[in-house]
Structure formats: structure tokens, C-alpha cells
């Protein structure tokens, strides 16, 4: 087991419980997805793992390669080989593509492989990263993360704001990276349809708790996923209290 999260709790301002006892696992070379609506706690979960929330998670253990990394600094966790690509891509907007790559240790002579994966970036090395398209920014964020040679990549909504064609290209690249470099991915997504295609396992998170988990076929068969993400409800129309409960929840 490469990453094992045991019953973690993340609390903001001492009273706002955002993650409430989440446990999940990630094996070497695996892609797992965490699916949930806005405000379910996906971003907080990934940030808690990556050490970006001060003194959090308050409870629980995060075992990465058998070491507890809970509450360790982001710098240390990154150096150990676990890297987060946040939902805003985490680029340095005023730096050029080349400078962004250099910060991840890019070397002109030895790291040309990065342009085999992301050919678009080669022609844009001198461009300011803020002026790239959304898709190119996401590719740059991924390229930068790959250069750090991580064992695990945490991707927060990588498809957010991208055109469907770019999304399928992005998930193809992620699948290729797993195959070529043996990297593991934990992906927080709302785009279930695209991410489920490459996932080995999935979790549904709701109000800070894992409410469902299983293989892609389990997810596809789940009424919850069908109804809320895949648009194929087979349930009878809800009425009254049932409908109220669902609307409040989602």
C-alpha cells in the first residue's frame, strides 16, 4: 500500500468540520478518483494530504510509504514524492513557461522527454504562463509535477474549465503516465464520465464523508452515481421528504 489514509478529520477555525473521518487507500500504479459535489470536501481532503492546511488533519493518520506524513510541511511531503496539482493549476502567472519548468528542476539537456508528452509546451517556452489557454496551463501544471518525479500525484479537478476534447486528451495523458512511469494518481473530480474511464477505484464523498466506494463498474451500477453524475436515473421520481433531503444534500 503506497498511501493509506486512516480516519482523518480536518477542521477549520476549530469548529467547521470539513473532513469527517475519511479513510482511503492508493496502491502503486493505481488511479483512484474521489467524486463529489461542490463543497463536499474534495479540495480540503487533497490539501490535508499535501500538508497545505496548517496543523491539519487534526485526527487520523496519513501513511505514505509507511511513514506518517499527517501534519508534516508541504515542502517535506513534496520532497518525499507526493505532489499536488491544485484546482487553480498552481502556476506562477508572471513567470514564463520555461521558468515554471525550471522551478521543478527542468534541465534543457536531460529533460526533453517532457516535450514528447506535452509537445505544445515546446513552442511556448518563452511565453508568460498566464497567457496560455486553460488546457495548456493544465498541461504545464502536469509537466511541472512530472519533473519532480513523484510517486503519487494528487490532481484537484484537472478537467475544470476545459473543452471536452482537451479533457479526453488530458485523461489519456494521465493513463499514459501511469503506464510509462508507474505513477499513482488520486484525482478529485466532478467529471465522473471522463475520469471513471481511467480509474481503478472510486470514492463518493459527501459532506466530508465517504458515502460510497467501489470499482468503476460498481460506480456505474450505483444508483447514486447514475442519478447525479451519469444522468441515467432508473429510480422512481422522488417526492416530498425524499426530494427535500436530496436537494439539501446536493
Amino acid at each position, binding site marked *: 500500500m503506497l498511501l493509506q489514509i486512516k480516519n482523518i478529520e480536518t477542521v477549520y477555525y476549530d469548529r467547521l468540520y470539513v473532513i469527517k473521518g475519511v479513510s482511503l487507500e492508493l496502491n502503486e500504479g493505481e488511479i483512484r478518483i474521489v467524486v463529489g459535489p461542490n463543497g463536499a470536501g474534495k479540495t480540503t481532503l487533497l490539501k490535508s494530504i*499535501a500538508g497545505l492546511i496548517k496543523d491539519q488533519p487534526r485526527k487520523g493518520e496519513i501513511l505514505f510509504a509507511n511513514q506518517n506524513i499527517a501534519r508534516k510541511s*508541504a*515542502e517535506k511531503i513534496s*520532497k518525499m514524492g507526493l505532489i499536488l496539482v*491544485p484546482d487553480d493549476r498552481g502556476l*506562477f502567472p*508572471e513567470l514564463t513557461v520555461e521558468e515554471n519548468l525550471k522551478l521543478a528542476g527542468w534541465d534543457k539537456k536531460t529533460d526533453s522527454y517532457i516535450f514528447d508528452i506535452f509537445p505544445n509546451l515546446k513552442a511556448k517556452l518563452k511565453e508568460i504562463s498566464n497567457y496560455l489557454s486553460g488546457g495548456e496551463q493544465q498541461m504545464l501544471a502536469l509537466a511541472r509535477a512530472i519533473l*519532480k518525479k513523484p510517486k503519487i500525484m494528487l490532481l484537484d479537478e484537472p478537467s475544470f474549465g476545459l473543452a471536452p476534447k482537451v479533457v479526453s486528451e488530458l485523461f489519456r495523458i494521465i493513463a499514459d503516465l501511469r503506464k510509462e512511469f508507474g505513477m499513482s494518481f488520486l484525482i478529485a473530480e466532478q467529471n465522473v464520465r471522463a475520469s471513471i474511464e481511467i480509474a481503478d477505484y472510486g470514492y463518493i464523498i459527501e459532506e466530508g464523508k465517504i458515502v460510497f466506494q467501489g470499482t468503476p463498474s460498481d460506480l456505474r451500477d450505483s444508483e447514486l452515481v447514475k442519478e447525479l453524475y451519469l444522468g441515467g436515473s432508473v429510480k422512481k421520481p422522488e417526492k416530498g421528504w425524499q426530494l427535500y433531503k436530496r436537494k439539501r444534500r446536493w
Partner: protein
Amino acid sequence: MDYLIAGIQVGFIYALVSLGIVLVYRATRILNFAHPDFATFGIFIAIDILDKYGDKSAWVYILAGGAGAILSACVSFIIYFFIIYEGQKRGVSPLGLTIVTIGIAYFFQSLEIIIWGADPKAVPHFVSGKFSLMGIELTWHFAVIVVVSLTIMFILYLLIMKTRLGIALRAISQNLDASRTLGINVRFVVGFAFFLSSLASGIAGILIAPVYSVDQFFLFDPFLKAFIGAVIGGLDSPPGAIIGSLIVGITESLFGGYVSIKYKTAFIFFIGLIFLGIRPEGIFGKEIKERV
């Protein structure tokens, strides 16, 4: 013309000091009020060296000045590394840490009085004489200030724009979380910004020490004017800080020469206030928008 030249001279000094203010502000959003005191500490050391090796040759000046500036830079690095960073780590806000720097400034002023006494010290001119350039009479002191300031600015430009450490420094000022997830050693890199800022101010202090009498507060006035220069040019823009400081230096000198020497400082602060009212981000600064 004399007033203009005097304004350019003092403008370059303000520019070196304001570059230091901007470097630290960009990386931390802290206004370092101890900035002039780190530099003053180094200048007192330089004066001690000059007193000890009293032949006052140019080499002794360069060595003493260099040693003083490097020492003030090291003090600044240590203060960031062990005090300010610890505050940041514990979640102290930039405003809270700005207040901490006021405390550090008082500490250094008191320490300097204990070690060197409260009497002002005179520093002899390290160059004297005049020369003529295109019909304009200039002092060698002016030439040294301009050449050294431009050289320091060029070196700072190369360090910040071309080295990996400089790129990391710019990265931290743009996205702290992303810098941390990339494994950038934020503590060391921001410490480096403190080092550079005090090095520039230390050199500025040594260049103007012969004009002022050196006491614990002698860099406070240039610091405030450099701060106004940074406000005018843009607190997050190094080129803006240089241009803003030159504007302050020249305006101050011309106002002092032609209008009133008594109110020249007040006039500079008045201009600073006007800029804060109409363009708070400065000429070259970017509007800061924060998500609540």
C-alpha cells in the same frame, strides 16, 4: 542644474533602499521597519574598521563598506530566519509581523547606543573633487553613487531574473502554496530576499554616510522617503520603486531649492498621500485583489 544633480544623487540612494523594501514586501507582504536599522548596524561596524585601519585609502573604504553591508545583510537574514519566519509559521498576519519589525528596530537602536554610544559620528569623504561632463560640473562623490547604484541594480536584476534562486523568489511572491508543493525552501529563499534588501540598503547607507552624521536614526529619513518612492512607483514593482525614488529625490531637491527647504519633506509626504488616494498600487504596481 545643481538642484537636479543633487536630486538624482539622493534619488539613487532612495532607489537602493526602496528596492530592499519592495523585495521583502513582494515576498512576504511585510513592511520591514527594521530595514534601516540593519543597515545602520553594518555602517557602525564599517566605521569601526575605518577607525582601526586609519589610512583611509580607497581600498580600506571599499573593504570596510563591503564588510559592513554584508554584515547587515547577514543580520537581516538571521532575523528573518529565526524570528519573522517563526511568526509566519505560527500564522501571524503580515500586519502583526510589520509591528514585530518595529520592535526589532527599537532593539537594534538600543543595542547600537549600548555599543557605540549616542553621539553622532562623522565619516570622512572617501572621494573628493569635481569633474566636468558635457559642460556640467559634477562631484566624484556623485559619480561614485550613480555608478555603484546602477551596478547594484544590475546585479540585483541578474540575480532575480536569471538565477534559479531569483526565480524561486518571484514564484513565492506569486503563489506561496504552489511554491511549497514544488518543494521550494520558502524559509531560505525569503531569507535571501531579506539578505539582498539589507545588502542594498547597507551599501546605500555607506555611500551617503559622509554627507550625514551617523547615529542610530540616520537612515530613518531616507527609509521613509524611499518608502514614499516605492508607494509612488508601486510597492510590488522593483523598476517602479527605482523610478518612484528618483521622482522623490528630484522633487525633494527642486522643491527645497526653489520653494522651501523647510517644507520639502512635508511636500514629499503630501505627494505620497495624493498617490495613495488616486493610484494606491503606484505607477507600475498591479491592483491587488483578494478573495474574501
